[in-house]
């Protein structure tokens, strides 16, 4: 049988090549030349941070496909929906004759953070708190200097980075931590039992698309964010009981946003926070 084209032919064309290439002298020479090269410490730290902050892999959604009762459940849902629709259209019961009720007035002044992004931000916040506190200093040679951190991370992320000291909070360090598999700048703070994260996330890695303010309470965490110049600056707070409220993080967010908007004059510190934004 003639050999098929492709892999077999390419391999058999290499007739002159010896079957086993044993050459300890050459191997030793190459080892001496190249073997000592190791990854820079900064890269190692970044990779460690990425691996450490890896959000949990979501469990596969198997129920609908695998559970034989799922079909029955789905059919029941459809029947109930049809029943409700029929009830509304045919005017039985004490239901308004207008089948389409007006939507309730919206009291929310700002958009919620998309749940998927909120879950990713929280996963990174929780992961870093569990693994690194009180030492989340994952960016080398920055000495907690906010300008250096902002400079370093801007080069990584290609968007202006927000690095701040917050009054009343201990700064526990910054890291290039991934959110949903994408690198972000992640600053972590503590105040007693409360923890707070400040993320700078390139907008290209989020479902958020437009400038503005965002806030959510999600899975026991409070989140507040603002979007500017292609980046989302997001606070994620958590604490026991109600020690951290949505109002708290929104207040910090508003404060940061106020400082962020105008060009930052060098050496001019705000009363509540020192802000370093590098947008060069």
């Amino acid at each position: 049988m003639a050999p098929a084209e492709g892999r077999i032919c390419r391999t058999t064309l290499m007739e002159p090549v010896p079957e086993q290439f044993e050459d300890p002298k050459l191997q030793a020479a190459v080892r001496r030349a190249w073997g000592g090269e190791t990854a820079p410490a900064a890269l190692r730290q970044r990779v460690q941070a990425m691996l450490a902050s890896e959000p949990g892999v979501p469990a596969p959604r198997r129920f609908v496909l695998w559970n034989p009762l799922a079909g029955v459940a789905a059919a029941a849902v459809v029947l109930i929906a049809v029943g409700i629709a029929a009830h509304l259209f045919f005017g039985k019961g004490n239901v308004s004759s207008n089948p389409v009720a007006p939507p309730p007035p919206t009291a929310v002044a700002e958009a919620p953070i998309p749940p998927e992004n909120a879950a990713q931000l929280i996963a990174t916040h929780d992961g870093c708190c569990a693994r690194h506190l009180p030492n989340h200093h994952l960016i080398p040679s920055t000495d907690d200097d906010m300008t250096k951190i902002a400079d370093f991370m801007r080069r990584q992320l290609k968007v202006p980075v927000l690095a701040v000291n917050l009054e009343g909070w201990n700064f526990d360090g910054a890291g290039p931590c991934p959110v949903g598999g994408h690198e972000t700048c992640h600053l972590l703070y503590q105040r007693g039992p409360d923890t707070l994260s400040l993320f700078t996330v390139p907008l290209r890695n989020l479902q958020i698309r437009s400038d503005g303010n965002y806030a959510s309470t999600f899975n026991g965490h409070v989140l507040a964010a603002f979007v500017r110049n292609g980046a989302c600056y997001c606070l994620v707070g958590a604490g026991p009981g109600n020690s951290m409220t949505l109002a708290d993080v929104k207040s910090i967010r508003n404060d940061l946003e106020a400082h962020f908007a105008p060009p930052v004059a060098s050496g001019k510190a705000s009363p509540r926070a020192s802000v370093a934004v590098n947008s060069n």
Partner: protein
Amino acid sequence: MKLGREEFEALALQQLDLLYRVARKLTRDPGKAEDLVQETYLRAIRGRSGFDLQEFGIRPWLLRILHNLYVSKGEREARQPAAVEEQKLEAADSGHDGAALPIDPASFDAMDEQIVAALDRLPKEYQTVMLLWAVEDFSYKEIAAALDVPIGTVMSRLHRARQRLAEDLRGYAANEGIIRE
């Protein structure tokens, strides 16, 4: 076999130096090498659920991600050919197959500096194979799996790299009296 998160993390991190060395050879630039390695880990983290620990462990899998990233990046940026085509490599080396080495590899012991320079002059694809074989102790099969090429290609690249090195070093070795021409 599926790995737990901790195991995956530990295994993946063990390969950092290897990935960096390969990235350095491919990109020939420390900064780009770091970017490439970092992106490789990001992809690996994202693809962890699809990783299955098999015969050769995690090394070929990570290397394959790195190599594919490098190739696709090169194609996207169109700065230069992402990988030297085998035909071009063969054309550049035509006439060398089966020929005896210009110098005895035993002479390599006395020429470390020259070897570093000669290795650096090799085409990237040869360097990568040479590095995996000589420094990382990869088997041919592992190299083939990591670079997604047939084993025959691995063998021929190694052979040609060796030829080139020997040729490159012949003049120096003769001048220094390490060999007699």
